[in-house]
């Protein structure tokens, strides 16, 4: 069956370090991937997305890498700040542009940033 998961449930880094959060998926038909950040007591917040026809996409301090060969997704956060502390979820959908298509979420990685 398909699944989306994260390699590590927790990640602790020092302020200023770069963080890398990993995610593996099993459905080779997956077409669209999203990273969400969820702070305590809040809803998931969109960070960055990538489609299967891309290998890399950059945003502000964040980069998402997609390796379709090994079905692996990663989120890189540059110069991690205390405000980046949150739970990070990867999500995927195997059917692009179909309304009502559920996002399949991984179980999340908790990022803790110490100053």
């Amino acid at each position: 069956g398909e699944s989306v998961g994260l390699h590590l449930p927790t990640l602790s880094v020092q302020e200023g370090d770069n963080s890398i959060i990993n995610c593996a998926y099993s459905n080779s038909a997956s077409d669209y991937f999203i990273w969400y950040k969820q702070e305590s007591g809040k809803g998931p917040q969109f960070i960055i997305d990538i489609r299967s026809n891309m290998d890399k996409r950059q945003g502000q301090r964040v980069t998402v890498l997609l390796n379709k060969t090994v079905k692996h997704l990663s989120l890189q956060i540059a110069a991690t700040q205390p405000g980046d502390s949150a739970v990070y979820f990867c999500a995927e959908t195997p059917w692009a542009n179909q309304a009502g298509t559920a996002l399949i979420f991984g179980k999340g990685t908790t990022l803790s940033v110490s100053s």
Partner: protein
Amino acid sequence: IAGITQAPTSQILAAGRRMTLRCTQDMRHNAMYWYRQDLGLGLRLIHYSNTAGTTGKGEVPDGYSVSRANTDDFPLTLASAVPSQTSVYFCASSQTSGSSDTQYFGPGTRLTVL
């Protein structure tokens, strides 16, 4: 622009009672979703709606119903609440198009069924 609002923020409910969680979006998105989030299980889809007037079942629909009378509102109803429905409920919306399927989430409703 508020985005997505949910009400109530939290609720404690006796088992067997009926409860409706409200969700409103002002982005004119065509699609809306309800998820529940439980510790260790992540976010799971309960119901969704492609457009006003249509709804569909997600991964965990039992015990829940939805309606989509208009574009902006997507209420979730628990006809007879049970303790296993204790969870945090998130509403989301998206504008499905050729370039983006990104779902945007509301702040959530924390529901406790006793």
